[in-house]
């Protein structure tokens, strides 16, 4: 029984991590139709910033607070310089972001020296509740992810800014005609997506250790999660990310890990084939 509960928690926490990573990707994809191939590298930047702050002698959680801000700034700069030109041609945007990701990744690799470095967790140890072992930091990640999601949802659904964002998402021309600056909205959205990725990177770096290839791992899972969940909504990527994360963590309990790996992707694609809208088809909010 304990094993099952432990397993469930582990699976859940991994799902939460994937959701956090995917959220930013999904929002940008839904809003602008651009699949940001550099999203994984934003995660990497978040992790790297945390590491830098930590090696400068400051506490880890300080790095975790700084990271989303730094990555958001990078995202903003990139959006203004690069991404902006490609709103009309999303395919070229994908490739531009791929090239960007390459540059960022190799630069970080050069800076870290190609090794794997570790960053300690801000909360060490585990809570034991009724025989179930809950590592504190993983618990923290689950809680933070939940808060972020709730916060984002509230932002979108309840604030006037959120209203403008939704308007730009649903009908850009009408939004512009109504006086909403879609350019500013896009910039804000991209920055927000980058901030989320940076946060994800900062939160997971104590678990997964820092290396230049940290982001690549998440990228494909991210795309699949967005596809699976459905482009065009807020809940879509969340659902997709949760499902992909849960499947990736749970399947190895049942089948050989190598097979489980491939199976997640095959299942996802097959699902999208037969339900093209994804889990949560875009509907008017």
């Amino acid at each position, binding site marked *: 029984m304990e094993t099952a509960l432990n397993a469930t928690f*582990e699976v859940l926490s991994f799902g939460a991590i994937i959701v956090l990573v995917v959220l930013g990707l999904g929002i940008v994809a839904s809003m602008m139709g651009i699949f940001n191939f550099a999203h994984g590298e934003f995660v990497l930047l978040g992790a790297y910033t945390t590491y830098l702050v930590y090696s400068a002698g400051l506490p880890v959680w300080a790095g975790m607070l700084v990271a989303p801000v730094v990555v958001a700034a990078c995202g903003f700069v990139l959006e203004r310089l690069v991404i902006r030109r490609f709103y009309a041609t999303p395919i070229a945007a994908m490739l531009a972001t791929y090239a960007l990701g390459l540059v960022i990744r190799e630069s970080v690799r050069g800076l870290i020296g190609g*090794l794997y470095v570790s960053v300690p967790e801000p909360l060490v140890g*585990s809570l034991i509740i009724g025989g179930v072992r809950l590592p504190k930091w993983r618990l923290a990640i689950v809680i933070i992810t939940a808060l972020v999601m709730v916060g984002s949802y509230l932002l979108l659904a309840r604030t006037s800014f959120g209203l403008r964002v939704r308007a730009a998402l649903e009908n850009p021309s009408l939004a512009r005609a109504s006086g909403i600056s879609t350019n500013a909205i896009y910039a804000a959205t991209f920055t927000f997506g980058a901030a989320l990725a940076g946060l994800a990177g900062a939160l997971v770096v104590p678990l997964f250790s820092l*290396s230049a290839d940290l982001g690549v791992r998440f990228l494909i899972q991210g795309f699949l999660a967005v596809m699976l969940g459905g482009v065009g909504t807020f809940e879509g990527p969340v659902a997709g990310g949760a499902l992909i994360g849960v499947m990736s963590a749970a399947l*190895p309990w049942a089948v050989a*890990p*190598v097979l489980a790996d491939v199976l997640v992707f095959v299942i996802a694609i097959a699902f999208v084939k037969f339900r093209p809208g994804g889990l949560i088809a875009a509907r008017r909010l």
Partner: protein
Amino acid sequence: MDEENGDRSAAPTMNRRCVLQSAAWMGGAIATGIGSWVIPPKWASAATPIKVGIATDLTGAIGYAGNANANVAKMVVKDINNAGGILGRPIQLFIEDTASNESVAVANVRKLIQRDKVDVVLGGITSSMRNAIKDVIVARGKTLYIYPQLYEGRECTPYIFCTGPTPAQQCDEFIPWLMKNGGKRFALPAANYVWPHILNEYARKVIEKNGGEVIFEEYYPLDQVEYSAPVNKIMTNNVDVVFTTVISPGVGPFFKQLYEAGFQKRGGGLSCVYYDENTLNINAPYEIEGLASCLDYFRAVTRDDPVSARIQAEYDKEFPGKILFSAGSAATGMYRGLKLWEVAVKEAGKLDRDAVAAALDHAKIFEGPGGPAEMVPGKRHCKMKMYTAVAKEGNYEILARSEGLVDPKEC
């Protein structure tokens, strides 16, 4: 870079001359098609230089190890040249980047063989890299190839000599030590590629021969970071010793999750045979306290072995920084390989491949990192001393040494 732009440190008044000199050199270099890293010997000599090619990962995921290899090569060749070269001829070093990418590697190794026409190639770190470049060097290129990294064995192609530890060297003395200090119930969680498969095959034999038991043996994709399932299996099955070959990026999370589950607390022993000084940084020290490894060299060896101390000091002086001289990154194998080859060429008296191969077949060196080394005749693998070390508070402490040189038992 210092060798090429030697004058940069001169006084500012020399500036224009320096620039012109460098420009002339560059122009000449471009004209003659030189690229990559060519380190010509400092002393000009009437004798034609001996050409040594190094093909290693300077960039990419294996870069931290490749750069150590390149550094070692530069250091050793400089020493040899300072002592007068081999057969009165200086060594010219050609370094090519295999970029942790096999297709790029093949193209660059071809440059060493066909453009630079080197007399020997040392390099390759991962087995997949070795497999990719060996044909270009040995079959199509008809050149000698020395492979310096610890690996799974079974490379018996003629003209390929291996100077890194083999499964026999890593397991024969280590596993009995583990059983004495840990217990009889083993788990073999592994990364899913060739080295762990074959190493585990050998390890299982040794375990069972010594009365131990393998509780489970499992293979995970290289980038798996969730190890809750195997950690759970280890805890619920009362495994005494975890003999793991999980590599980065999975190894950090795996050790962390194992520690959090309380494995070390209940007396479990952790062991990982590729773990060297480079990898110690992946986890926090308390997570890997007591981790045992068996390699041909640890920095701690320098406390008792003056030769190792000298080599380590020389490396640290010439290459301070993050690129470490360690056994897991093929650096020790590279040193060994170059010195053994030097001895072989001196014995053969010429650079003809068959002559050198025949001499290399039984070459011995008395001074190497970790101790002397000798080639096993007919087997093209190298005997060396092996050390069992345990991680204590983030550093290694040697707890056992092999009596003499351990047999690789290959081919």
